[in-house]
């Protein structure tokens, strides 16, 4: 294992201290409660936006705390959802009287821990709503199963809902907006390697050279199936087909395209993939109107990428363009 870390058991803490040191004007790390909160709390009356999840997916969510996105984030251990205490603390920190929206990725651990936190918060004078993100089409959404995972749509919901909260939208409006964005977004990921969790010290699985995993998530686990290596063009074709056949956007629709790297794939490859994806989307008459390309939702040092497509409406587009100032997404101010 070759990593720039100290004690493997301290990676998350060391990272959070470093993050806070690097962005003192945006966020701080409450080491006691293990939450990341804005340095300058939002103005009273703004709905608080909170998200959390296992660490290892950086910059998600801590890197999205700041004006125009999250008010607080609660990071768990590597690939381990945060515990209810953290979620409660983050929620209280984010509340300024107008209620708090929990953005939850549909993973058993996350759902259960946010559920327990909600039970604890029921005794407080504080309204919570929930948006559950489940955009991953690699997972078949069969009744009785855990259902689809939350992937790239998380970022889009956080950005769009964050912007709406900043302009003063109320909790119920934000909840339905978040659900609307999630409903119009789909993702599909491909892994070109496993990743190495610091405590484990070796890759989670072995991926023989010349093979890739289709339909991966964000915790380094294998995907839906293993196939022989594909070219960028072929990977794009699989992703576009999976995502579009499920989402079925209206003909000619404006879409937002997110090409998300898993952590160890160079930016140049993400752009190669974007080029192929855009060509295929245009062939199908969709119009990429907004894009985000980079490492936003990663799986430590895994190589690979995921496509997320969001069918935009005017409202979402406007909110996407609104100013945002977080460590990892910043524009307009």
């Amino acid at each position, binding site marked *: 294992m070759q990593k720039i870390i100290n004690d493997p058991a301290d990676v998350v803490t060391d990272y959070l201290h470093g993050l806070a040191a690097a962005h003192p004007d945006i966020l701080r790390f409450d080491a006691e409660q293990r939450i990341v909160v804005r340095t300058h709390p939002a103005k009273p009356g703004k709905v608080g936006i909170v998200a959390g999840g296992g660490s290892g997916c950086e910059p998600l969510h801590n890197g999205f705390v700041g004006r125009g996105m999250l008010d607080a984030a609660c990071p768990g251990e590597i690939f381990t959802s945060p*515990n209810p205490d953290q979620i409660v603390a983050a929620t209280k920190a984010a509340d300024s009287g107008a209620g708090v929206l929990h953005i939850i990725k549909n993973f*058993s*651990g996350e759902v259960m821990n946010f*559920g327990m936190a909600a039970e604890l918060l029921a005794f407080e004078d504080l309204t919570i709503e929930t948006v559950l993100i489940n955009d991953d089409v*690699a*997972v078949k959404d069969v009744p009785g199963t855990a259902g689809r995972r939350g992937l790239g749509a998380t970022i889009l919901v956080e950005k769009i809902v964050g912007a709406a909260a900043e302009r003063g939208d109320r909790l119920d409006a934000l909840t339905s907006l978040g659900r609307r964005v999630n409903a119009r977004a789909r993702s599909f990921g491909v892994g070109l390697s496993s990743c190495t969790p610091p405590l484990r010290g070796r890759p989670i699985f072995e991926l023989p050279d010349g093979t890739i995993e289709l339909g991966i998530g964000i*915790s380094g686990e294998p995907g839906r199936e293993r196939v022989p290596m594909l070219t960028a063009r072929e990977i794009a074709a699989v992703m576009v087909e999976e995502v579009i056949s499920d989402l079925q956007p209206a003909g000619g629709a404006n879409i937002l395209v997110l090409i998300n790297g898993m952590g160890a794939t160079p930016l140049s490859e993400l752009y190669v993939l974007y080029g192929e994806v855009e060509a295929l989307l245009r062939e199908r008459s969709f119009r990429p109107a907004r894009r985000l390309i980079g490492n936003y939702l990663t799986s430590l040092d895994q190589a690979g990428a995921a496509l997320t497509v969001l069918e935009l409406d005017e409202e979402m587009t406007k909110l996407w363009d609104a100013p945002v100032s977080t460590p990892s997404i910043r524009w307009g101010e």
Partner: protein
Amino acid sequence: MAEATINESPTVSARKVADWVLECARVIDENLEHLNELDSTCGDADHGSNLRRGFAGVRTLLGSEPGDKPATVLKKVGTTLVSQVGGSSGALYGTFFLRMALASGQDKELDRAALGEALQAAARGITERGQVQVGDKTLYDSLAPAVEAYSNAQSEGRSLTDSLQSAAKAAEEGRDSTVNMTARKGRASYLGGRTVGHADAGATSMALILRAAAETLGP
């Protein structure tokens, strides 16, 4: 009929509960790599590490005074697991011990029936928390048959020790039954058919924990 053998059965004190969870800590340590490996075939390879972190916290906590009644110990264990494990297993095992605590009420000692009710409450807690059923390839596949076996043994009038032994055995059979299942809950569910052929990590740890119960709560 249950009454007939009740005098032979010891009861479960706070001390015994503490012994149980310390034994859990020991067997989790012992099976750390095994549990991680089981989780790696279809999850994120951390189930053993997660539980170890939690039970290490429990061990520290119980090093001092465990408490005067079973519920006190069980509640401490549950809270510690919830807050030090996180993830699915923190929520699930946390719920398991918290519901046992709730069911144990103010009793200083749990008799065979009370323990059975506590286990049943724990199992119900898991189904609620995890939205899980038998056959989903989770720790519930060890727990559900174990609780059933315990209650059958109890209604047959068998001793606490015996009942716990049946429970542990049923849990191990339950664990083995997960090998051929396709996961429908947890991270493994995302892999679909690829999960067949390996026992579920959580079902394996649950079997260890119930075996530890048989070894510590009974005698």
